[in-house]
């Protein structure tokens, strides 16, 4: 598929989102919160969200971790295996920006850098939503997915104000 009708694809998965969890070397905190989102208090199955075992089955990748050097090639392969449109929810401050490890020798520093590598390898990503948190709360994960599907509005925006005495 060369071009992807994103709006149509999003409409198609609105009631049934199958997610694949991809960990690129995170500390596990975001990962257990992903699991937590499945359990009774949060129960993401009520939105039709289901965790699947293979990127082939996935509509959306839940991406965690700062992308360690060792995991990089494997992460690229996993994302490539996902059918288009490739939707990615980047969870946690590590994934978003490399987090506390953003400049160490054995991580590449988050999804932004990974995107470059993906592009070099000819793997296109169709839509990315960043979900900061350390770790991300289950509710933040739900919010992120709903934002990606266009159900809720984005709350944050870039702000730069001039300091002033009130």
């Amino acid at each position: 598929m060369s071009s992807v009708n994103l709006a149509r694809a999003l409409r198609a998965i609105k009631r049934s989102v199958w997610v694949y969890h991809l960990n690129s070397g995170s500390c596990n905190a975001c990962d257990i919160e992903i699991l937590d989102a499945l359990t009774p208090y949060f129960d993401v199955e009520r939105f039709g969200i289901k965790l699947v075992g293979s990127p082939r089955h996935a509509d959306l990748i839940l991406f965690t971790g700062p992308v360690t050097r060792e995991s990089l090639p494997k992460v690229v392969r996993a994302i490539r295996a996902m059918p288009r449109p490739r939707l990615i929810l980047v969870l946690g401050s590590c994934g978003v920006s490399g987090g506390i490890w953003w400049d160490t020798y054995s991580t590449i520093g988050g999804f932004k850098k990974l995107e470059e590598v993906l592009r070099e390898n000819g793997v296109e990503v169709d839509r990315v939503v960043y979900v900061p948190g350390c770790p991300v709360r289950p509710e933040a994960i739900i919010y992120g997915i709903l934002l990606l599907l266009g159900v809720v509005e984005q709350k944050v925006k870039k702000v730069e104000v001039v300091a002033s005495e009130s």
Partner: protein
Amino acid sequence: MLHSLAVAAIQLVLAPVYDGLERKVRAAIHTRIGPPVLQTWYDIVKLFSKEVVVPVGGSWYALVAVLEMLTLVTASVLLVHVSSAGLNRAALFEASVFIVLTGIATTLAVVRAVSQSNVFSVLGGFREFSLMISAEPFLATSLLLLISGAEAPASKAIAALVLVIAAYVISGRVPYDIAEAEPELASGVNIELAGPLLGVATLSVVLKKFISATLTALALTSWSSLVGIASLAAAALLTPIIWIAHTVVGTLLGRSRVDLAVRFLYTTLFILSSMLLVSYGLGV
């Protein structure tokens, strides 16, 4: 013919709804809300809207998946015939063909799985095969005996019991979901499928559950003398109830291991079937 097509269509529509109901009930036992009742339908519709990824083995492989689903639909329609005949000798032919077709469907699934170079898929295929040989022969015996006139109460009861157990096994629920056991095989036999093909496979899965529930309904109504529409109605009413009962049983148990499962099923079903043959022979 038209009648059969209508039956097939109704089943195809209903089975995913029942599956949605199953997920809802399971969620309730988990103390959570769970998905909408139509969730399985949403899943299938979505899968059909996705890109077709032809797995290794090419279109032949895809054909096997579709064929498997069609076989199951046919088997399911035949089962309805058997049921409307009220477990009568008249339906012996349909019942025999039904048994052959379920066997073919499982074989197709196994072939599809083991033809992959994916080890998980291959292992899943072998597990499916082990389960098949430990359940389907007994299913065949008990069903045929019930139809061909096991009149005596003891024989009838044992045959019904064997049928209930075997039917549960082919429903593919815990503890017998080992062919796709997620933890070790990551959806095993279906691992290589995606998009519409996975949708077809999902339909196969729910159809198997449908067949399983109908078979159980048959076993339970084998005492009644309902025929025709009345018998159909009874089966139609019982099917969702049995489906839910199956669900509850599934939630209470853990997954078995292939060697344990085969040993357990073989010993249990073998003993029961032997008793059945003896009682049938004695006419009690």
